[in-house]
Structures are given as structure tokens and as C-alpha cells.
């Protein structure tokens, strides 16, 4: 449940529900489960649509984003606003359009319609500034130079973001320490375990402060202590709007003040917090 910001976060995120459609499916589910404790709780968790916009310049703002490939529609008009310091979990089954939405945010996929504004920079009008304002944690084994060491990889990506070599190396060292990876700084990526690479990905995303951070399954491959570190890390990003794509409902309920359910390219529902059982009860998310 959204322990990070508690009830205030529910209120803060309330305005965004105007993008979410009718929530008709949820009502159907609730009708099928009359008076049950779960349905009562869902009523409480559902974000009402009448709250005013909490922040006029959010860290991440997505408005009416649509994407289709040939004849298949992947995103059918997604709206989402995330305030600085807010962590939002994006849930949904495979093929719901989560990764496509993530790639649209970081600028490697172009939307057919709609706006993506990151830290006040429009991805369409000012793509370089928008891309500079977002960091990205990839959800798989990709995205590394396997012949380079951990610190060399981080140093390179720091330089790519405009730091000179010595500053990038110093920042890389600090982030390695932050992720408890300083002992592996000079090991090549090939010698890293899956969990170590996942932590290194967090270190890379945090090399430079950004207005927004998007993470694709950041908990994959992490052991329990590393999971705790991930939770603490995400909670520490006080001025960054964070969007986490995950299938791990437990993780979502721990880190996110708000959870969105994306299904068939549309945000079907959002909750302020919610336990895994409560989210599962909506029927919009498949169980683990």
C-alpha cells in the first residue's frame, strides 16, 4: 500500500483520474462482488475524478498519447501526470502497451498523437532537452558493454550525458558505492550476476538528477536485501517523477503511491496504493 505518501498522495494524484475513462469494468466487478470486503476497499481506493490538478508543472506529463503499428493499436490515448517525488506503478498484462509507453517517454519510439512533457520539456518540440530530463532503467540484460568494467560502463554513460571523464568517474564511483557495488567496480559486466546488473542499472539511471525516471521491472533478479535497497532508492528520489513498470504486485504496493492498470493500450483503472490482493480483485491484472 502506498506507504510513501499515504493519503495525501491519494489526494494529490486524484486529478489524474479524469484520464482514466469510466472504470466501468471495475463497477461490473464490484457488482459481482456485492458487500464483500474487497469491493468495499476498492471503492475506497479508487481515485475520484473531481480533485483539482495538484501540480501545474509535473515531472512527467503524458497527454492523449496514441500509438499504432500498421493496423494494430498499441496505445489508445494514455493520459498520466506524475508529480516530482511521486512513484507510480504501471501494471498490466503482457502486450498491454507498457514497454511501448516507456519507450515513448524516453524518446526511442515516436507517438502517433499526444504530448509527452518531461520537466516542462516537450518531447516533440524540444526532444534533446526532454531526453536529458529523463533517465531509464532497462528491464533486461541489454544495454551494457560487456567488455567494459562496471565503473567504465557508468563512466561512459555519464560522459554521454555531458560530464567530463573525471567527473563521470567520480560520480560512477559514488553510485557504485550507493548500490553496494564498489567491490565489483573493476569487474567486467560478464562477471556480474543478474542482480548486480540490475543494481548497476539503477546506478546508471541515477548518474545525473533528472525530472523523471522510468524503470522497467527494476526488481527482476534482485535478492531480498537488494529489493529493500531498491525500495529505499526509489523513496529517496524526492524531486523525480518515477514510473515503474512491474508485474510484481507486492513491489508495486510497497513502492508506489499510485498504481495504474494499463490494458489493451488504455489506462483502465488507478488506485492510490492497494494491496496485491485488492489489485488482483479488480480482475484487470493477472496474478503472479
Amino acid at each position, binding site marked *: 500500500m502506498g506507504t510513501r505518501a499515504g493519503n495525501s498522495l491519494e489526494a494529490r494524484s486524484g486529478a489524474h483520474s479524469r484520464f482514466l475513462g469510466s472504470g466501468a469494468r471495475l463497477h461490473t466487478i464490484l457488482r459481482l462482488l456485492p458487500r464483500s470486503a474487497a469491493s468495499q476497499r476498492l471503492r475506497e481506493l479508487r481515485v475520484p475524478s473531481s480533485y483539482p490538478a495538484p501540480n501545474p508543472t509535473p515531472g512527467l506529463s503524458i497527454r492523449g498519447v496514441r500509438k499504432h503499428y500498421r493496423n494494430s493499436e498499441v496505445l489508445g490515448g494514455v493520459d498520466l501526470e506524475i508529480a516530482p517525488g511521486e512513484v507510480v506503478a504501471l501494471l498490466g498484462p503482457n502486450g498491454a502497451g507498457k514497454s*511501448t509507453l516507456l519507450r515513448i517517454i524516453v524518446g*526511442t519510439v515516436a507517438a502517433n498523437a499526444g504530448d509527452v512533457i518531461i520537466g516542462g520539456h516537450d518531447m516533440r518540440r524540444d526532444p534533446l532537452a526532454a531526453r536529458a530530463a529523463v533517465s*531509464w532503467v532497462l528491464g533486461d540484460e541489454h544495454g*551494457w558493454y560487456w*567488455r567494459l568494467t562496471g565503473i567504465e560502463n557508468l563512466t561512459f554513460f555519464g560522459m554521454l550525458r555531458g560530464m567530463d571523464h573525471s567527473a563521470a568517474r567520480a560520480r560512477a564511483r559514488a553510485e557504485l558505492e550507493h548500490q553496494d557495488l564498489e567491490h565489483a567496480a573493476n569487474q567486467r559486466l560478464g562477471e556480474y550476476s543478474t542482480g548486480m546488473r540490475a543494481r548497476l542499472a539503477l546506478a546508471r539511471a541515477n548518474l545525473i538528477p533528472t525530472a523523471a525516471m522510468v524503470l522497467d521491472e527494476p526488481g527482476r533478479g534482485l535478492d531480498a536485501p537488494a529489493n529493500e535497497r531498491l525500495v529505499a532508492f526509489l523513496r529517496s528520489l524526492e524531486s523525480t517523477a518515477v514510473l515503474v513498470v512491474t508485474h510484481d504486485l507486492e513491489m508495486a504496493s510497497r513502492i508506489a503511491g499510485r498504481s495504474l492498470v494499463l490494458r489493451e493500450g488504455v489506462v483502465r483503472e488507478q488506485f492510490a496504493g492497494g494491496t496485491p490482493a485488492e489489485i488482483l480483485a479488480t480482475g484487470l491484472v493477472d496474478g503472479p
Partner: protein
Amino acid sequence: MNSRLAGALVWRDFRIELSYRVPWMLDAIGLVSVLAIYFYIVRFTRALAPGANNFFTYIVPGLALIRFQLGLGRTLASMDREQSSGTLELLISSPVRAWAVVAAASLYELSRSLVMALIALALGRWLFGAGLTLGPRSWPALGFGLVGAAAFYLALTGVTCAVLIAFKQGLPVAGVLGAVLPVISGIYFSPHVLPAFLHSLTNIFPLSLAVQVVRAGVVAGSFPVGKTVVMLATSFACLPLSAIAIHAAVARARRLGTLGQY
């Protein structure tokens, strides 16, 4: 392209190269072998036709400039790996222009090609005894010729990377270029022996002109100013076209969502 971006990518490529330890040495061994092949071919044909001109002296400048072709192939192979490993997507998502990324990613191999071209000339002259003039009289033509060839290959690398990004077919294109360019550029023989309809192309083709300029410098010790001007103009004119090709390829890949695919 800013110097920090160029520095980042050259530093990365140097570190990766260093991790393999031997590529420069293998490159040098390959270079000596290529020179040796032509040296002995010429020795053999001389025996068949005594009094023939020294073809070995003629061909060494071409063999030097063809090092850029190897550099192009390596850059493209590296870009292909970047595409399949997902780092290309990360590079393109960084706050720099795509053409600048590709240009910066070409710099290490271009620098290596430049050094290997000079080594080829030196080995040809002092190890194999080619009749080259490598003194100060040859320097203007040699310098401008190498700069023109580097600019042309930078542009060509950009175009082939654009094909790789857009159609995932960069390596076959590099293979075709590797077969076609030596024919029309006069690496192994003068373009004058080609069919007449190709002459108008070879007269303005940057690589043909670069080969002719370098050859004039290191074989005859002369500096053909007119050819040099045309070569530099055509070489550098290719650069913006290359940038446009990369921009279009990346825009297409973003539209189709194929930037991370291979």
C-alpha cells in the same frame, strides 16, 4: 558533434579495444601480409614481362587508403552489435543528436585507419622498397588526400549506419561497398581503363580523387591543387547528406518502434 561526445565514444572504443589486447597487432600483421601479397605478385609478373612499370609503387597508396574501408566495416560491425545488445537504443535516447552519435562512434576507427594508412606507406617504402617519395614535397597532397578520404568515409559510414538502423541490413551493404568502391576508385588500377560512361563518375568521386591526390604526392612528389579542391568539396558535401540519412533512418525506426530491434 561536441568534443565531449566525441571524447566519450573514442574513450569507450579504446577501452573495448584494449580489453581484446591484440587488434592493433593483428591489423599490423594483416597489413604486412597484404603488402607482401602485392609485392610478390609484382615480382612474379615482372618475371613474366620484364621491363614492366613498377606496379607495386603504383598500388601502395591505394592499399593505404583502402584501410578506411576496413574502418568502415569495423564501425558498422560495432554498430550492428550495439543494435543487438540494446546499447544503440540507449545512445539514441541520450540527449545528443543521432548523427552526432554515429559520427563520434566512427572517430576511433577513422583515426586507426589514418594511422594504418601512414604505416602502410612507410612499410611499402622502407620494408618492401616501393619507389615512394615520403619527404616534405609529398606532405601537402598526402595530408589533404587523407583528410578528404577520411571525410568521405565518415559520410559513407553514416549512410551505411542509416541503412543498418532503418533496414537492419548494414553489413550486406558494407560488403557491396567493399566490392564496388575499389573498382571505381582506382585503388588497384587507373579508373581510365573503366568503361567511358563511368569516367564522369570517377572524375568527381571523392575516393577516386583522394587516391589520385595521394598517389600524385607520394609517387611523383606533386600537389594537384585543382583535384584537391574538387575532392575536398565533394567529400565534405557528402557529410550533410549523411546526417540527413541518419536523421531519416532514426525517425523511421522511432515511428516503427524498431530502434531496439535487429
